[in-house]
């Protein structure tokens, strides 16, 4: 393995899923560090704080896994807000929408966002996870 992703971010309210992904990342040593938020608002607040305080860009993740269905602020709302601040964040961030929804309308809608790299349907196989991280780190 070559380079490793420094910081990954999971935005998802499903505790079990988050735990499992955390395990995968640990076992496969895919990322040095991990940010976990249980809804869009918590994640957005974090990004806004970094933006406003111009703090260390190392605190920004290289990759985001965004769930769609979450309380308070769902994935769609997060995307709409994130578009507005993304350019002000001084870092290339890869974003994947990850959802258990197989509804083609969700797929289409997610892909209509330029900042969405891809739509991943849960469950994501371990091998797929590894590939995604490798691509992002390269």
């Amino acid at each position, binding site marked *: 393995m070559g380079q490793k992703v420094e910081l990954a971010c999971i935005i998802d309210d499903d505790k079990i899923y988050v735990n499992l992904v955390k395990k995968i990342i640990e*076992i496969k040593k895919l990322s040095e560090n991990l940010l976990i938020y249980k809804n869009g608002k918590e994640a957005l607040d974090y990004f806004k704080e970094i933006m406003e305080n111009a703090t260390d860009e190392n605190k920004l993740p290289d990759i985001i896994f965004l769930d769609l*269905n979450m309380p308070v602020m769902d994935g769609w709302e997060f995307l709409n807000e994130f578009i507005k601040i993304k350019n002000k964040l001084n870092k290339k961030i890869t974003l994947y929408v990850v959802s258990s929804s197989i509804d083609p309308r969700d797929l289409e809608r997610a892909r209509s966002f330029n900042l969405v790299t891809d739509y991943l349907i849960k469950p994501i196989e371990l091998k797929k996870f590894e590939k995604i991280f490798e691509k992002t780190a390269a």
Partner: protein
Amino acid sequence: MLSDLQLNSILEDFDIAYWKINLFSKEITWSEHFNLLVGNPEIHEDRFEFFINHILHPDYRYDFRIHFEQLIKENEAFSFEIKLKLENGKYRWFECKNLKNKGHSSLRETAVLLFVNIHQSKRDQYTIEENFFYYRETAEMTSTGGWYIDTVHKNIYWDDVSRKIVDCPKDFQPAYEDRMNFYAKEHHNRMKNAFDKCENYGIPFKLEIKMVSFQNREFWVRLTGKPVYNEEQEVIGIRGVLQNIDDNKNNELNLQNSLDIIATQNSRLFNFAHIVSHHLRSHSSNLSLIVELLRESKTDRDKLDLLANVEDVAGNLDNAISRLNDIVSIQTSLKKERVRIKFEEAMEVVLASISSLINRENAKIVAEFQDLKEIRYIPEYLESILLNLITNAIRYRQPGRKPVIFIQTYVENDKEYLEISDNGMGIDLEEYGDKMFGMYKSFHQNNPEAKGIGLFITKNQVEALGGTISVSSTVNIGTTFKIQF
């Protein structure tokens, strides 16, 4: 007395031909014009017989002969409408009558028979009769009546079909002042406006409107009205037609109704697919993720950890399925009968089931059902609606404030309402309004009890029985839910 020459030219101008009959010799002389009309035939036989056999239409031969003889013998008045074959071989209508001699009947020497061309007016008459026939048949078949309002003398005229449509006696004469009584109350304004605009400004109208029959039955008509002007270009009346479209309109309304039902069912199906896609799949995908990790894990400890996760997934899956069942059961219980149910009784059931919650939160519930004591509803629904809205109100109380919930029922414009207001934390409707009744939407952070399904079910239950639910809310002040049954 005019000379024959003068007479001839006058008669010719009016397209009138004549016969002169010598009563002694029975000799018949045709006027020049008559000769011309029938094409100057060469006649070798008796002139009268020639006329009967070659010029007069066969239908009239018998009658003509008899009356002609009576004219000659008895000087009886002769008046006939007959068809003559002209020089072009075509039959034309003529009125044939004798010229009356005034006075000295005993001194009669000649009789005069006039032939007046009436073909055009006869044809017009046929056309009118024919048109009238088509008009009447069309009016009957499409049940379209004609009407006229004399706006100057304040009179109303209806034709037979109009009377039939309104179901009134044939000789009924509607009074001008009563004209609004034939329209449904809710359409009085529309009708008045249309009449006034037409009468004052000559603006025609075409309306679909509800009328009231003589027997007080309401029915739909299509009504057109156009102004009638006098020579000074002032409106002196309104006339138009009136068509009974009750069957069509009812079909249309039924169709719309079916469409609405299908649309709601379709949206429920979408919701169902949504639940399956988002919430059942998330558990199954977690399961397969666990299985994959189990394969990878090397130590027993890791494996045990993962097994604990399986237990969690199983619990979540169980929850999701029972919620799914809640939603599906809305559909099945639709087949249940509505019964008369007292709000008071439904309320008792609900309060008993959440008495511990009410006591724990020290909530005060005020219920006023005086204005509307009972409705026809499915009892389980009413209880479920009350339960959901009351527990919501308590759950989202304003911290530090004693929760007060005010419940009342009432009737407004013939519609039945239930209102539930609280003094809770409220919600920003600008931000969340459109998602309020969506599924798995919870807006308040840090509330582990929020499952985000209650309002979705409430809305579905209300709508399944043809009602609507709306919400108004102010942050930190409280929320009011209003249900129209």
